[in-house]
C-alpha cells in the first residue's frame, strides 16, 4: 500500500514538473519613441509575463551602461544613448535575447 502511494506520489510530482517545462522561447522587441527614449517589450512565446526580467543597456564596447528590470507590463524604457549600443533581455541561461541598437527604429 505504501509503495503504491509512493509511486503515485512520484508520478504526480513528475507531471507537476513536466508542466513547468513548457515550450517557452524568450522574445524581446524594442522601438524608438522619438523623444530620446527607447522602449523594449518582453515576453515568452506562451504568453507568460516577463515582469522582473533583467535588462541591460550596453555601449559599443560591451560596457554595461544601464541595468534594470522589465516592469509589471513587461516593458522597459530608458534613455537612448549616442553611438552604437545593444539591449540585453536576460531571463536566465539559454534565455538571452540581444537587440542591436541599429535595429531599434521608430
Amino acid at each position, binding site marked *: 500500500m505504501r509503495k503504491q502511494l509512493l509511486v503515485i506520489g512520484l508520478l504526480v510530482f513528475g507531471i507537476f514538473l513536466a508542466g513547468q517545462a513548457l515550450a517557452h*522561447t524568450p*522574445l524581446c*522587441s524594442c*522601438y524608438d519613441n522619438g523623444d530620446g527614449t527607447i522602449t523594449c*517589450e518582453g*515576453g*515568452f*512565446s*506562451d*504568453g*507568460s*509575463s*516577463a515582469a522582473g526580467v533583467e535588462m541591460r543597456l550596453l555601449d559599443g564596447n560591451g560596457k554595461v551602461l544601464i541595468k534594470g528590470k522589465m516592469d509589471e*507590463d*513587461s516593458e522597459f524604457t530608458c534613455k537612448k544613448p549616442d553611438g552604437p549600443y545593444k539591449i540585453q533581455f536576460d531571463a536566465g541561461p539559454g534565455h538571452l535575447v540581444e537587440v542591436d541598437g541599429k535595429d531599434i527604429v521608430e
Partner: protein
Amino acid sequence: MKKIIFVLLGLAVLALSVPAFAHFQMLYTPEIALEKGGQLNFKIVWTHPFADEHTMEMTTPTAFYVLSQRGEGKVKKKDLKDKLKPITWTGKANSARAYEASVKVRSMGDHVFCFVPGPYYDKHEEAWMQQITKTIVNVGGIPGNWAEPAGLETEIVPLDKPYALWTGNVFRGIVLSEGKPVSNCDIEVEYINHDALMDKNAFAKSNYVEPPQDAFITMTIKANVNGEFSFGIPRAGWWGFAALGVGPEKEYKGEKFNADAVIWIKAVDMK
C-alpha cells in the same frame, strides 16, 4: 443573331441569379503574422470574394477599432475610425465605394481589429444587413487576446489562431450573440479567389480556382448545438466565415435587419 440572343439570355439569367447571400465584408491586410510591428494597410471592401460578380457600395462605417494584448498584459483599445478613407474598389463587373486605412501597429502580441459597417439595404432580400467583422493580426509570435470575445453584439470567437494556420489545418470557432453561443446557425464560408491589388484598389481579373458547381462558391456549413463549427482548410490564402443573421437586432428603420458575424483567417502552405 442567335449568338446575340444566347448572350442576352445568359446575361438575363446571371442578372436574375445574383445571390443575396455570399456577401462578405472584407477587412483585408496582406500579412497578419508579422515578425515586427509596422504600418498596416487595410482595404475594406463589401463584395463577393470568390466569384467577384458584384461589388457593393459601402455606406458610412459605424465603428473601427483594435483591441491589443500581449501575453498577460492589459487589453488596450484604440479607436481607428478617423483612419478610414473612402476609396473606389474595382471588381470584375463594377466599381463601388470601399474604404482603406493605414494603421501603425508596434507592440508584440495580438491585435483584434473590429469593423462595423453602416447598415446596407439589400433590395433582393428587402432587408437591411450589417456584417460585424474581425481580422486578427499577431506581431512577434507572443499570443494575447485572440481567443477572447471582443464584446461585440455578435461575433465569431476563434478556437484556433486565425493567423497561425497551415494549409490543411482545421479552423474552429464559436458563434456568439450577446456573448452567448448560437446553436445550429448557418455559416457561409468563402475563399478570396483573386489577388487583391493594394496599389490599384482592385481585384485581379483572373481566378485562382474554378468551382465545379455553385455549391462550391459560397460554402454553407452549420454550427453544432454549442454554436461551434470546424472547417478543414484546403488551400492557402484567405477564408471568410459569416454566421448569418445571428445578431440580436432584428429591425432597423421599421424593416427587417440581419446582422452577421464575420471572421477572416489566413492559411499558409507548409514548405
